[in-house]
């Protein structure tokens, strides 16, 4: 059943490329979790939001911006866009049933997808990433600089977010607002703005994932659709309300399916996604809340 000859060098390369994919899935999964924790709904527009901001980066770069000058600009645009989406589109249905919010995000996905085709046209195009695609030698294994860069940027972003949530007042307010709306209001947290802020953060995470993955996948309006499915799977695997779980779920998923695709004959490229979903199903049979899902401890 093994394809070709097994070498440790190639195995190491596969791990790194799995981590690269996993970092992207994890970042997007984290965006899903941030929104899920505050609105209890899956944001199906997360992929399209990410692609949209990546197109903005592409336009900026076409107008002479370098990647790293466009990068902070795109993040600012993404953040404002996320906040605006929550205020204008989600807020009116915020107190409605979860299914209403889900349908609204589906509608938003369709709308953004159409807008992208309208503004930038369909078809895919190359996206010049910030990292070189040549390889460097790491302990005898040639590894792509791009893969290392993607993993490093994703990790840095997640670490920054973790520090923000843990040590800043605003981060604490965001967590509180997601946990208990009324108690948060009673201590003076402006919950409405916290929800909008969460959407802004999710949009930023999506923008980074989009800009990192575009050089690998090529840019087109549907670029993030499959990625979003993997991200969703990663979030469920980690436990939908656990930010740490989302990141670890993403990495686990990335590495597992890369290895399965390479070394298990019948999986190959075509069956990667179904295999991933099957694995997750098996995990959830044993741990229904996901690997890191919250089982509330409470003494009454």
């Amino acid at each position, binding site marked *: 059943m093994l394809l070709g000859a097994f070498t440790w060098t190639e195995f190491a390369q596969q791990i790194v490329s799995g981590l690269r994919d996993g970092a992207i899935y994890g970042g997007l999964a984290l965006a899903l979790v941030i929104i899920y924790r505050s609105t209890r709904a899956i944001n199906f527009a997360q992929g399209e939001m990410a692609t949209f901001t990546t197109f903005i980066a592409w336009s900026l770069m076409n107008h002479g911006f370098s990647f790293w000058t466009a990068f902070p600009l795109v993040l600012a645009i993404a953040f404002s866009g996320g906040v605006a989406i929550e205020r204008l589109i989600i807020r009116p249905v915020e107190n409605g049933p979860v299914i209403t919010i889900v349908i609204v995000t589906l509608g938003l996905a369709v709308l953004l997808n159409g807008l992208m085709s309208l503004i930038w046209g369909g078809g895919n195009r190359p996206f010049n990433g910030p990292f070189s695609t040549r390889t460097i030698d790491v302990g005898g294994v040639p590894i792509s600089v791009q893969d290392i860069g993607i993993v490093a940027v994703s990790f840095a972003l997640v670490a920054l977010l973790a520090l923000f949530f843990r040590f800043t*007042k605003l981060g*604490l*307010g965001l*967590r*509180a607002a997601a*946990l*208990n709306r*009324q*108690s*948060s*209001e*009673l*201590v*003076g*947290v*402006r*919950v409405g703005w916290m929800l909008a802020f969460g959407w802004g953060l999710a949009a930023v995470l999506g923008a980074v994932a989009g800009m990192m993955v575009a050089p690998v996948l090529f840019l087109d309006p549907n670029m993030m659709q499959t990625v979003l499915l993997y991200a969703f799977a990663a979030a469920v695997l980690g436990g939908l309300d656990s930010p740490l779980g989302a990141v670890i779920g993403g990495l686990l998923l990335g590495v597992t399916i890369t290895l399965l695709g390479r070394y298990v004959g019948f999986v190959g490229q075509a069956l990667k996604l179904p295999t991933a979903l099957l694995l997750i199903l098996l995990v959830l049979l044993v741990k229904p809340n996901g690997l890191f899902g*919250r089982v*509330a*401890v*409470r*003494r*009454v």
Partner: protein
Amino acid sequence: MSALLKLEGVEASYGPVKALHGVSLEVGNGELVAVLGANGAGKTTTLRAVSGTVRRSGDITFNGSKLRRRPDTVARAGIAHVPEGRGTFSELSVWENLRLGAYTRRGNLTEGAQRVFKYFPRLEERKGQQAGTLSGGEQQMLALGRAMMARPKLVLLDEPSLGLAPMLVQEIFDALDKMRGEDGMSVLVVEQNASLALAHAARAYVLEVGRVVLSGPSDELRADESVRRSYLGY
């Protein structure tokens, strides 16, 4: 004496069901005022009307200006509401709960935290513990401590004695007395345990089906025949 908090003809309802039919009451600076009454009399709703967590009409004045019906604005004005069920964040640590209490304040938390730990040393021991794993008494201490962190002018306290051992209840009311003395805080407390409330409050209001039926200094109420029979049980 000019009142810190003044309710005039306050009505409140949950959907079509009216819970308050025109309640008027006052809390003075540094005063502890109790609201007594049977279940469903509207005690909790009175507190919720102040903090803006229930739909209401009528005038509520706090510190000389009209109070808006937005809980976060009310909190910023200097009112800390410790609601039914205490409103602590069980998933967050004790320390994070206290930090949230000071959410509306700028600057260093140490001084405020020190005061809380002086009243409730047990909270300092359990600083890093998840609030949900505290005992009922400790959670009530945390709820009060969190309220203190905001340095409020007024604390709204809903059934602090509920489900607690008598010793703990005593400890909590003693802490309340000290806080008022040392920090000049006012307290409006809703309490089932009427004898306890009357022992600590300067004045009290008795509610029946959403109306104030009796009010006055605690001594007078304690001597009142109907209060004695209905709420004190002797």
